[in-house]
């Protein structure tokens, strides 16, 4: 694997013929990094992928959120981001009447929802009206850093499927870094350890192989 170029805020980025996209600013037709992260080049674009960054709401992301507040017609939801999101009562599969929201979702409840709309000032609205979206009744929630989510999922979902199968748990990964895990107590704690290792070692090569070995060993011990 080629080594990735690491950049710090203010470092010059060699754009060449590529189109600069995320994480850079322009000054006198030169480009400089805005983050501490790695340079990622694709066929057409060049991006800076930060090592850490807050989650910013994007339309169509499927996320896990926590109910923070109940209003007359809307719930305020914490989506592991600097910005809160809103869930309107008409965007749920239930027939909710205004002022009666607490009967369906209470403060502290978790939901698996989709961001239906987000705008340029980072306001966003959620919906529960889609396949698989629901209130998360049981299980445990953990959080990982939002930029590590793609590594937790893996290529085509192979990392998360590996963890699911080997630890015998049910897992939902939200794009915002919240992860829901359900199963036997021991299995759940194994899955949590595994996910934490993935988060910590996300940038090291051959992670899937080592993970599969690690999980097999765990299984052998039990």
């Amino acid at each position: 694997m080629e080594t990735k170029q690491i950049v710090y805020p203010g470092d010059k980025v060699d754009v060449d013929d590529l189109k600069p996209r995320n994480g850079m600013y322009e000054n006198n037709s030169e480009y400089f990094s805005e983050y501490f992260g790695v340079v990622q080049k694709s066929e057409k674009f060049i991006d800076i992928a930060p090592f850490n960054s807050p989650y910013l709401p994007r339309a169509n992301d499927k996320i896990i959120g926590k109910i923070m507040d109940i209003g007359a017609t809307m719930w305020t939801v914490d989506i592991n981001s600097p910005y809160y999101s809103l869930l309107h009562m008409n965007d749920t599969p239930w027939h909710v009447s205004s002022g009666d929201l607490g009967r369906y979702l209470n403060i502290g409840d978790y939901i698996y929802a989709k961001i239906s709309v987000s705008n340029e000032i980072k306001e966003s609205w959620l919906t529960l009206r889609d396949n698989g979206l629901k209130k998360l009744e049981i299980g445990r929630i953990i959080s990982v850093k939002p930029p590590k989510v793609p590594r937790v999922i893996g290529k085509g979902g192979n990392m998360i499927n590996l963890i699911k199968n080997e630890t015998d748990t049910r897992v939902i990964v939200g794009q915002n870094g919240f992860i829901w895990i359900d199963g036997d107590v021991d299995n759940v704690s194994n899955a949590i350890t595994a996910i934490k290792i993935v988060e910590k070692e996300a940038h090291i090569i051959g992670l899937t192989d080592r993970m599969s070995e690690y999980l097999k060993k765990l299984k052998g011990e039990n």
Partner: protein
Amino acid sequence: MESNIKLITDDGLRLDGRALNEMRPIKIQTGVVEKADGSAYIEWGANKIIAAVYVREAYPKHAQNIDRAIVKARYNMSGYSVEERKRPGPDRRTMEISKVITEALESTIVLEKLPRAEVDVFIQVLEADAGTRIASLTTASVAVADAGVPMRDLVVGCTAGKADGKMVLDLSKDEDNFGEADIPMAILPRTKKIVLLQLDGKVSQEEFDEATSMMMNAIPRISEIQRNALMSKYNVEEGE
């Protein structure tokens, strides 16, 4: 106030044995506060300072800026961080330092990328030994970068001053207390833009120029330490 303390010995060294343009040792570490979005700890000589950064929607709502983030740095000194106990809580001096640090950070953070948000920077001085404001700013900018807040450059600070009639780099406590002048300065290394400059005492134009050139020479070294601090978090994990 006239003092008869000798700050520079006959062989041209300072009281702590440093040469005139020598810095105190600096050590920075990131990721020291688990629940913060970003954090950093600095040991600059005997200064020990911790900085934690939190990014969130600004509260109350009327304080939000619709098109940009607001920065709130809060510099705070522990009661026994100095020789004589400091009465805890904000006072004239800490409010001033909070203000200048806020303004320096505002000039480097890409505020438009985080509309309505608030970047909270909490700076706690555990032990103070001259030059805390630039040590705070240096570590705060590392903490902001660690949090993944978009920024144009890492702010680097440094001090110089006049002691016993000579210009010296990175004042120690005695030189700060009994010297003739103290000049803290912070710049954005890429553009060499000055984001903080204060002067306490009296210097001539030539002396001031000498001080700034001394600091400009020291800044790449501090900048290097900042970068290594950010990287070390990932190197440790790699070195298995």
